[in-house]
């Protein structure tokens, strides 16, 4: 049962990481345009290149 001392904090850390990720995504405006995001995900063509890409 001593393993709990490691596993429980570990589980909590993982949960906390999830929360931090959520708060970060909220702050960076990823929930501002949910309709648009839904379409962007399945859009076929590439978005206009921000800078010329050299192959």
């Amino acid at each position: 049962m001593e393993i709990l001392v490691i596993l429980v904090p570990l589980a909590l850390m993982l949960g906390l990481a999830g929360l931090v990720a959520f708060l970060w995504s909220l702050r960076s405006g990823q929930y501002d345009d949910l309709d648009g995001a839904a379409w962007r995900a399945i859009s076929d063509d590439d978005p206009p290149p921000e800078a010329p890409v050299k192959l």
Partner: protein
Amino acid sequence: MQVTRDFSHYVRAAGAGLQHIDLAVEGVHCAGCMAKIERGLSTIPDVTLARVNLTDRRVALEWKQGTLDPLSFIDRLEELGYKAYPYETESAEATEVAESRFLLRCLGVAAFATMNVMMLSIPVWSGNVSDMLPEQRDFFHWLSALIALPAAAYAGQPFFRSAWRALSNKTTNMDVPISIGVCLALGMSVVETIDHAEHVYFDAAIMLLTFLLVGRFLDQNMRRRTRAVAGNLAALKAETAAKFVGPDEISQVPVAAIHSGDIVLLRPGERCAVDGTVIEGRSEIDQSLITGETLYVTAEHGTAVYAGSMNISGTLRVRVSAASEATLLAEITRLLENALQARSRYMRLADRASQLYAPVVHATALITILGWVIAGASWHDAIVTGVAVLIITCPCALGLAIPTVQTIASGAMFKAGVLLNSGDAIERLAEADHVIFDKTGTLTLRDLEVTNAADIPADVFGLAGRLALSSHHPVAAAVAQAAGARSPIVGSVEEAGQGVRAVVDGVEIRVGRPSFCGAEALVVGADLDPEASVVAFSRGAEKFILSVRQGLRPDAKDVIAALKARNIGIEILSGDREPAVIAAAHALGIAEWRAGVTPADKIARIEELKQRGVKVLMVGDGMNDAPSLAAAHVSMSPISAAHLSQATADLVFLGRPLAPVVVAIDAARKALHLMRQNLWLAIGYNLLAVPVAISGVVTPLIAAAAMSGSSILVMLNSLRTRRRAREIV
């Protein structure tokens, strides 16, 4: 005179030598539009960011400072086929956005805590029936407390604040029992943890917050979205004014950039965007948006003009004044304030429910405690049972019962072109059993139409339309539009306030006032609509007359019939003259009408109906309707309404048809029915759960299962509106 367009008011610095502007764009519906706009704008050199927001129908643009004029973006979008206009975030919308984000953050924290506390609770529940050591259980309980307490302190803020506000106003709302329930559950759990007890309720308390925050967030998000759409519509009206920037130089600037004391130019055919006083010029103006009167009024030096007035014939110079200076507005504002105060007394269904609910629940808990003490239990055990009663009755389902239905119903209305200004409007609209319509601009459209086009030979009508293209007069514009004219006649001459003339194939043609065309004889003989303006057309010796008036909304008759079928009383209260009102009432089959009514009279009539217990829905658009919109039980106005009326109305509907009125009433009635059903579901659940709690056999497992079960049941029941809403729309 030199005219420029100036959008610098909307441009703001975006740091590092960049400038930023937000544009509201019309007609962006799909991924295709999004890609097209972004690609189209990105090809402009020096543009560093072009991103479409499909939810709010806006484009954010950034470019290198000083290289581009915002005008070029609007022109570019025009080429792509989209109408766009700079958009400025109002403070009201900014608040909604901030609130929405805050709720989402609370929800994230609460959901994180719920999941983790649940992860710790399930081992305890299963350990309690097997071989868990008391030390291990205490360890898990302390960990739960460590997560749940700070999370609840943060995520519970929306409820605690609202409950505190209600209590300090000596009222109560649904958030009061919620806050008490959560705090007691947490407090008792801490005490029990210290006592090494078996049962703690951290999971129940934090789960309750999560469920309630879902409802709260959905509700807020709907409101934010409505506000964004309303903001876009306002921006796309592109209200500008021609402001004098030099003695002989004018600049077309957005209304937001006009200040009191500025002098603006008002040309014929333009709608005034500001309030002010005429200082130079003479003209006729159409004040129908202000007073409901369709006859033109003469404007000269010293005449007060209001935003929404249409200038008809001459050019005016107007000195802008602060809105409240004008006498008519002051009167309307006073009436409006009185009416708004009266309205705030309305009790929402949720508040009514909580006023009944809270005392009953708290009394039950108290009786439980006393009952167990009398029956011989220790104070400690009795209080634990009492708190368990409060936890199990904590109005989780009750808190969700109304917002979930509201969210879905307002979404359905949104699709049908109805925007909600206030959440409780749905309840009030569902109760309405009498509709009062304003005539001008509500039953009729603002656009003028030619009523006797069928009586005139098509080639003559077409020629009259082409000639009319050369004039800015709104009546001439209506003739040109009705005739579908595209190419103006070369060499046509406009005589101000009279008409237009030209020579075609050696014959002189004229369109304008009957006297201008020598057609007075025809007008005297004809049986004309009393409301119509008469335009004459002459080709040599041939004379024709055209009757131009504001047409009824295309589906007005069907809507009135549909309302009658629903047993809703209908009447017209108009500020317009009697003949005009009779004509509309007759055409629509409305028996009850009053003409020449002042704003105060309208309110008096609404009060009279209120005394009789009638719940009035007021539908109006003029500035003179604003006080009665506020005084009525519930109110609607078309999007073409005066600003003040739109801001006062509970619901705003878009487009030319009147049908949204009926759609909104139907949707609201269904929604109210579901809200009541949800409340009964929640009460029924409590009736089942409370005896179990009173008997003292509730464990945290039962509390958690019962709570989530009832919340999910209520949510699923609300989703039924959505299926029905699809049938309507």
